[in-house]
């Protein structure tokens, strides 16, 4: 495997792994309005 091959593989695979990882991170950390409505504060206010 040539140096160019290593670079090609590492750049291509790293890019897609990083993009996928970043998207999953964004989805998992996204504050969802629906979840907030039904959060603990709302329950304490007497909402469903």
């Amino acid at each position: 495997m040539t140096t160019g091959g290593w670079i090609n593989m590492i750049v291509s695979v790293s890019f897609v792994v990083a993009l996928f990882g970043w998207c999953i991170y964004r989805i998992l950390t996204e504050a969802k309005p629906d979840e907030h409505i039904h959060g603990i504060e709302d329950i304490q206010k007497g909402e469903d």
Partner: protein
Amino acid sequence: MAVAGSAVGLGNFLRFPGLAAKYGSGGFMIAYFISLLILGIPICWAEWTLGRYAGQKGFRSSPGIFYALIRHPAGKYIGVLGAIIPVTIYMYYVYIEAWCLGYAWYSASGALNLGTDVSSYGDFWARFVGATENGLTVSQGHNQVVVFLVIVFAINFAIIYRGISKGIEAFCRWGMPTLILLAIIVLVRVLTLGTPDPALPEQSLINGLGYMWNPGDISQQLRNPQLWLEAAGQVFFSLSVGFGVIITYSSYLREKDDIVLSGLTATSANEFCEVGLGGMITVPAAFVFLGAAGIIGQGTFGLGFKVLPLVFSKMPAPQFFGAAWFFLLFLAAITSSLSMLQPGIAFLEEGLGLNRKQSISLLGLMTAMGCLFVVYFSKDLKALDTIDFWVGTFLIFLLATVLIIVFGWVLGIEEGWKEAHKGASLRIPSFFKLIIKYVCPLYLLTIFGFWVWFKVFGWNPATRTFEPTSYVTDLYGPTASPVARMSVALIVLIITFFIITTAAAGRRWDKAGNSTSREKQP
């Protein structure tokens, strides 16, 4: 999750690695990522946006969605493509899905250990799928594939019967992680192969990775128009854009759902499976055991169902890794095939006013008849190949071009932009406005032109002559194939059925009021 499941399919693990190795991965990856940036991702966002926009107006089927978007009665006939494409593709895709399940079973049972000669695996595959003779797969003693087909068909319709959320999405929620886990297990196995045969030191894993990833002469590769055509085509078909699937799924979304992030996540999941997993497994594994000679000239099916079973048979624990691999392919296929049914169901429900049970029954009957046609006329896979060419390639190009033009020019780029960002936590960089409005349609039309030039008219740059491909000569001339002609007749029949049904649906929609004033329906 459902869209990601739809996107991740057999092409990720079989077609992509074969193309990259064939054209030289240096130039191919450049063309591939350019196509992803200016074709795949923008069309994906456009499709998500258009679907949700029309969904807010109460339309759930592709003809209804285009009726609402184009604001003209003719719109629904353009949208009929979005129902025809997935339903027709399902008729042969589910057959390939049955092969994957069958191969998983035969791998696990040890029946796929056929020695060290690749021709044994080729013969097994040809008998299994009926490639040697029409009607072979439904004759006594050779109908094993039909058993798997019935199982796969039943699983698909059982899941779809439960609906999008409880059926498709619930299945994808465990199916996708399982698929990725299996791929990682197989990947680890492949990456730890080293040099299995010390007598053949050149057939090492490192050389296998080099065969897949060594860039070669990039400038020369990039001058090859076929490379651009194949790279764009791979991005395009792999992401399931222009299938009519994304537009249907997204019509069920709410206004506050983040379609920018969802679209990008589905795309990135597909890319992760394609480049990160598919690119690291298939070709290097085949190279390690068979060398370059064993890979060259093998198409998608050759690589997947002739070469790889031999490769797995040579690995330690062949039954486990073979079964894991083919079950992975089965999961990738079923998450895609499920998505192909929903556009048809949505159309029958919305257009004809059928309930879910009725529409599933009708669609089940239609797809079973189409599938039976493909299964019966299995010699050289002529029916499958012909339908795949005219529907799975030609019509998809057409629908994707329509989608991007509707987004950029009919809905309008500013309106579309505003619509895409409703509920979005991410901002799409503004240069994508230019890409969507000008670059994307031009690029698509250019690729389409190339495709017709090379794949239909058969331009041969070496001899500078036209040599019409078999897809043309099968239909016209002295070598015409009756099966190819019947396959095209089947496509025409399906199109006619959907057009007549759309006309009936249009009358219902017109009665309910025109698309611009239509309120949300329950």
